[in-house]
């Protein structure tokens, strides 16, 4: 749901707090209680109280990720993520981190395809400090030639290290290029070294002024808070920050995401273990098929009693490493497998065994016991996603920025738990076709 939708929905509701006429509310009870507000400058606020422990998580997400980058400017979002710690008008370089560390708090940041997220968890009496810090960098980030160049150099070094140390990076890049047909979805979040080099101070300032503004942000606070007091604080620190005048539309896939057959061999002399990557394009992550596909992911790959773990690792010892599952990138989803094996012969058997497990799911219904097991593993993971203030804040932001209607969040888990055995067979036949992407990794 986007900001406009929230505001429209709120028009029909009573204003909640006296003196805060600019604050409007949505209240949701399931799967836990949370409320959504917005300030006049467009900042969306999500609050969720949990008084189990005297701590609070403040997460601030900006709707900008690597998919928003232009060709030739890859790495810009991750560069900005790092620059957000390099000081603002009232906070010195790296002082944001020092303030949080001094009070025993923890912090982190992440950049994905669709968002850049900053979060910190601290003792609940330190909430004013975190809001002061977070608002200062939203209001007045210190961007100058020296700190931009210093950060660029640091990131270019990271890219070189990644290239050197991640032995399977090349095959992953090729795999992504074949699975995701458009540039916004298939370039590395860390960016390209040459692109990063060419980014100027003006580029960075323009990017910041476009995206790192309240009307492109969601501020989520969870934990030991008093909502009214918290809203007053938020208003104090954020309501005078100017909004962005021109936020581009979020990237969305326009073409036909139907699978094409691709096979490729990559020779990797630096590795001693051969392997393969196998990928399938799926429907949108917001379609009903996605719930069924998630259960298939759990059936095949989650836990030591999962089908592929038992077949490839426990029983036949064909794979040294096995991972994969559904991957979402904004409005696209794919299913990936990555297998490493001892030698070429075991790799071939592993590949055949994997395909044979896929075929089994296409032709026979799974038992109730197995389906219930898969649902229980999923349910435990799903609940765990919101069972601490920090996880809850990230869970709320992730769902708010997705296309799921946040008011229906309470019904989401049931959509997974209602998947039937026959639906699994149907989906297996629809998506797991011969038209897949296969990358063979050979060691010589």
């Amino acid at each position, binding site marked *: 749901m986007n900001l406009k939708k929230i505001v429209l929905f709120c028009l029909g509701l009573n204003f909640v707090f006296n003196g805060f006429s600019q604050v409007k509310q949505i209240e949701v009870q399931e799967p836990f209680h949370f409320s959504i507000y917005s300030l006049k400058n467009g900042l969306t606020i999500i609050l969720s109280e949990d008084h189990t*422990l005297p701590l609070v998580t403040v997460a601030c997400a900006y709707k900008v990720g690597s998919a928003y980058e232009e060709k030739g400017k890859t790495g810009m979002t991750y560069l900005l993520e790092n620059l957000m710690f390099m000081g603002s008008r009232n906070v010195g370089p790296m002082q944001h981190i020092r303030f949080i560390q*001094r*009070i*025993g708090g923890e912090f982190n940041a992440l950049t994905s395809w669709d968002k850049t997220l900053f979060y910190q*968890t601290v*003792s*609940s009496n330190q909430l004013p400090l975190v809001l002061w810090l977070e608002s200062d960098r939203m209001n007045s980030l210190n961007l100058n030639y020296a700190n931009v160049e210093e950060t660029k150099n640091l990131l270019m070094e990271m890219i070189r290290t990644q290239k050197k140390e991640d032995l399977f990076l090349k095959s992953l890049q090729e795999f992504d290029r074949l699975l995701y047909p458009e540039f916004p979805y298939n370039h590395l979040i860390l960016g390209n070294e040459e692109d990063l080099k060419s980014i100027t101070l003006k580029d960075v300032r323009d990017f910041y002024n476009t995206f790192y503004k309240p009307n492109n942000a969601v501020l989520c606070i969870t934990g030991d808070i008093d909502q009214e007091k918290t809203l007053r604080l938020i208003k104090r620190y954020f309501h005078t920050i100017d909004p962005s005048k021109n936020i581009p539309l979020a990237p969305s896939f326009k073409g036909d995401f139907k699978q094409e057959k691709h096979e490729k061999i990559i020779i990797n002399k630096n590795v001693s273990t051969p392997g393969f990557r196998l990928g399938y394009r799926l429907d949108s992550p917001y379609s009903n098929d996605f719930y069924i596909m998630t259960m298939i992911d759990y059936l095949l790959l989650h836990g030591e009693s999962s089908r592929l773990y038992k077949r490839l690792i426990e029983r036949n010892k064909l794979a040294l490493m096995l991972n994969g599952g559904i991957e979402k990138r904004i409005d696209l989803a794919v299913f990936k497998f990555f297998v490493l094996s001892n030698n070429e012969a075991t790799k071939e058997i592993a590949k055949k065994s994997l395909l044979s497990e896929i075929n089994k799911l296409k032709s026979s219904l799974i038992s109730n016991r197995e389906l219930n097991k898969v649902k*229980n593993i999923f349910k435990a993971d799903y609940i765990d996603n919101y069972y*601490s203030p920090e996880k809850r804040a990230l869970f709320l932001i992730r769902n708010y920025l997705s296309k799921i209607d946040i008011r229906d969040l309470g019904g989401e888990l049931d959509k997974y738990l209602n998947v039937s055995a026959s639906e699994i067979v149907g989906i297996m036949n629809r998506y797991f076709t011969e038209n897949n992407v296969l990358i063979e990794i050979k060691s010589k």
Partner: protein
Amino acid sequence: MKIKKRKSKSFNLPILLVLFVFLFLTSPVEAQEKFRKSPPLPYPLPDLNMPAIETSTLSNGLQISVVPKQQPYIDMHLIIMTGESLSPDHLPGLASFTANMLFKGAVGLSSSQVQEQIEFIGGDVSVRTYPDYSLFSITFLKDYLSEAVKLLSDLLTQPDFSKNEVNNVKRDMFYEIIRNTNPEHLGRKLLFQIIFNNHPYEKYVFNSGVIKRLTRKDLLTFFDKFYRPNNAKLLIIGDISPSQAVSITEQHLSLWQKKSLETYHINPPPAITKPKICFTDVSNTEEAIIFIGNILPHKDTEDHFSYLVFNQILGGSHISRLFMNLRETKGYAYWAFSNIELFKNCELFYVKAKVKTEYLYPSIKEILKEIRSLIENKIPNHEIEQAKSYLIGHFPVKISEHSDFSLRISEMVALDMKEIYWGNYYENIMYINSNSVFNTFQNVNFLNPVVVVVGDKDVVLDYIKEFEEVEIYNNEGVFQYKLKKEAQNNSQL
């Protein structure tokens, strides 16, 4: 006139320009609200209300501790009050081997069936063996307590220990030891071995050679002797009342037979009083890892909280002295921290740092200097207060995940720590001052710690030859030889 006018014009232009530039440069920057200029004060410190731990004992001697807490899953920990320190002297590793076998099947139930049953209840299992106890942790959806306890009962009362699983577990343990060449892991292992030399805790670290000697017979004997309800505690954390929890466990675990146990007394290990430098080689590592540690006596509550404050000031976080000195100021290290591990009979205090190889020697000297300075001088009040503020703020943060929360309680239950370590944490930290830390460390022999260095011998040995004597060990902790300083060098540790 005209000329004058011209002159006047040409004279005024630069002045105006200078004035413009001056005004531009000196004009105040865009105004901002006053409250943005400096960090706000915190609210008053909130209360920390930890849930109570309710304990009862079943007729077979099993102690049940229940912590009622509203959450959608249950964290259950079985604690066998025997750890690696009670493995036979010739078979270190037997306690770990036995613990690793528990979930590998029961009569009529294969290992993969056990795994399937755990996953069916949305569960996850981990097994840890410490010197003092063995810990089996299962987290599962809250509706399945009965199934989880029933499974535990099957595993404890009808163990199978098939030859096939014995071989599988031995193979996994063997490869885990020989494949783990992580320098940090090897450094901690060697530190432990040297510090607890000839003490039962030394058996906590064992090498791959011993795995071959472990037999099913040893396993059965160890299991029969120690896996008894009167040598165990069951901790249940979740949305359940103590009476419900006791009723369910009684229903399934009353079949578990108690057996009389010998009393084992383990003396506290002595502190190291003679400095020692040890080295182990990990080829092709670009940096060096340093561990420096010694034993602290485990005495009373106040001492423990003094240790915590001391640790925080020395190396508990990124703002502590070691990190600020070795990384931020001198640029020797990538990181440098200190840590305390709790045992039943003592506490182990150690510093660990990852340093640039060429700064290995000065890094060790700096760490030792920092330790000495903190022990010999009273720590300034502002630094004590800063450390206390960090510890108080960090406590709820580090137990905010249910798994960390329940692990902390399991440690407290296993080590028979008083609840003062739980509910009164804030008060105990606040009570500490500069004098209490100073006095605590006057009675502690800490100035001659063990130093362990891990790195590439082709590079590192050159940088530690300044020390009088360095003991060289292989990756499995087997002593190789002593490297002595050449006569002309007189540096001392």
